[in-house]
């Protein structure tokens, strides 16, 4: 897959006169024996990191701003945030039976990070960091570590991992590797779903822009907004489901 840097990275490269390097094993297009090389500056090569950190800063700034001017009678922005956090709270409390409020900050952070990254897909000049697999795999791995840690903390190391062995003793050599494989492949599906959706949507919007840049991409942009929201929702709900499966214990 060829690399497309966002316009922001290109502008910043031009603005600060950054050196363009040729990257090893990357951006090299083989053409009939001789290879054509592409040159990228650091910002263009690590475009996804630039956009992801932009999303993080944006989230931080908007959250701090809303928090610093919280009032009894909420303004428009505060109302939006109250709605979002109320909805997340309902979702977490519906699936996790005990101490659901403990997991809300993490789930909310993941949801906001993914949502703002998806929104960058329809912002001119930026590219969504979630259309790079590295970013979504990172988010999925963070969720993975989080629910395994909380499962072990809630149930204890031994009883958490013995849960994967199943109830029947002589089936353990069969069941345990399968369950571990299933646990690991969750990361793959969790990250690839988000990455594929956002990257595909971005690609289709780009093709529409190439056909006719005037009015044709508008439905695609609306669809991008909608898909970004839906994919954020799905990513969050799946995180909550994995978490509730890890920390659930019967009384």
């Amino acid at each position, binding site marked *: *897959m060829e690399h497309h840097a966002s316009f922001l990275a290109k502008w910043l490269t031009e603005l600060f006169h950054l050196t363009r390097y040729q990257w090893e094993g990357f951006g090299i297009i083989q053409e009939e024996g001789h290879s054509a090389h592409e040159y990228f500056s650091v910002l263009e090569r690590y475009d996804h990191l630039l956009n992801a950190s932009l999303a993080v800063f944006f989230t931080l700034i908007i959250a701090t701003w809303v928090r610093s001017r919280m009032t009894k009678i909420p303004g428009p922005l505060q109302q939006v945030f109250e709605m979002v956090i109320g909805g997340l709270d309902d979702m977490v409390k519906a699936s996790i039976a005990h101490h659901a409020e403990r997991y809300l900050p993490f789930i909310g952070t993941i949801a906001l990070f993914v949502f703002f990254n998806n929104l960058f897909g329809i912002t001119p000049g930026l590219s969504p960091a979630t259309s790079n697999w590295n970013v979504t795999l990172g988010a999925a791995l963070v969720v993975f570590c989080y629910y395994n840690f909380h499962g072990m903390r809630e149930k204890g190391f031994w009883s958490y991992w013995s849960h994967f062995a199943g109830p029947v003793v002589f089936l353990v050599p069969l069941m345990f590797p399968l369950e571990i494989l299933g646990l690991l492949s969750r990361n793959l*599906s969790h990250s*690839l*779903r988000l*990455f*594929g*959706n956002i*990257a*595909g949507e971005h690609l289709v919007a780009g093709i529409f822009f190439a056909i006719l840049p005037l009015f044709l991409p508008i439905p695609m942009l609306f669809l991008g907004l909608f898909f970004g929201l*839906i*994919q954020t*929702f*799905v990513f969050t*709900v*799946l995180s909550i489901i994995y978490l509730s499966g890890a920390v659930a214990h019967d009384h």
Partner: protein
Amino acid sequence: MKKFFTTTLLFTVSVALFGMEDATSTVTKSLFEGQFLAHLSLAIAAVGCGLAQGKAVAAACEGIARNPQAAGEIRTTMIIGLALIEALVIYALVAAFAIK
């Protein structure tokens, strides 16, 4: 449905025959290398996904029509299910990117 399967079969057979007839020609080579296969795999995946998502949405609509009070929960479950179905096409898309 019958027509669809017949068309698919005919298409497959014709492609196979075409391939056997002149295996060394560059046209056939380009057909079976890279982009064509990537696009075909995506199309096949999209057919299955369309059928499955249609079934899922139809069942959800029926459920909501019978019991409108449960609309919220049915909608949430349906969206999760749709995302899980869609993931299979997304795998095909990622594989198509990889082949291309």
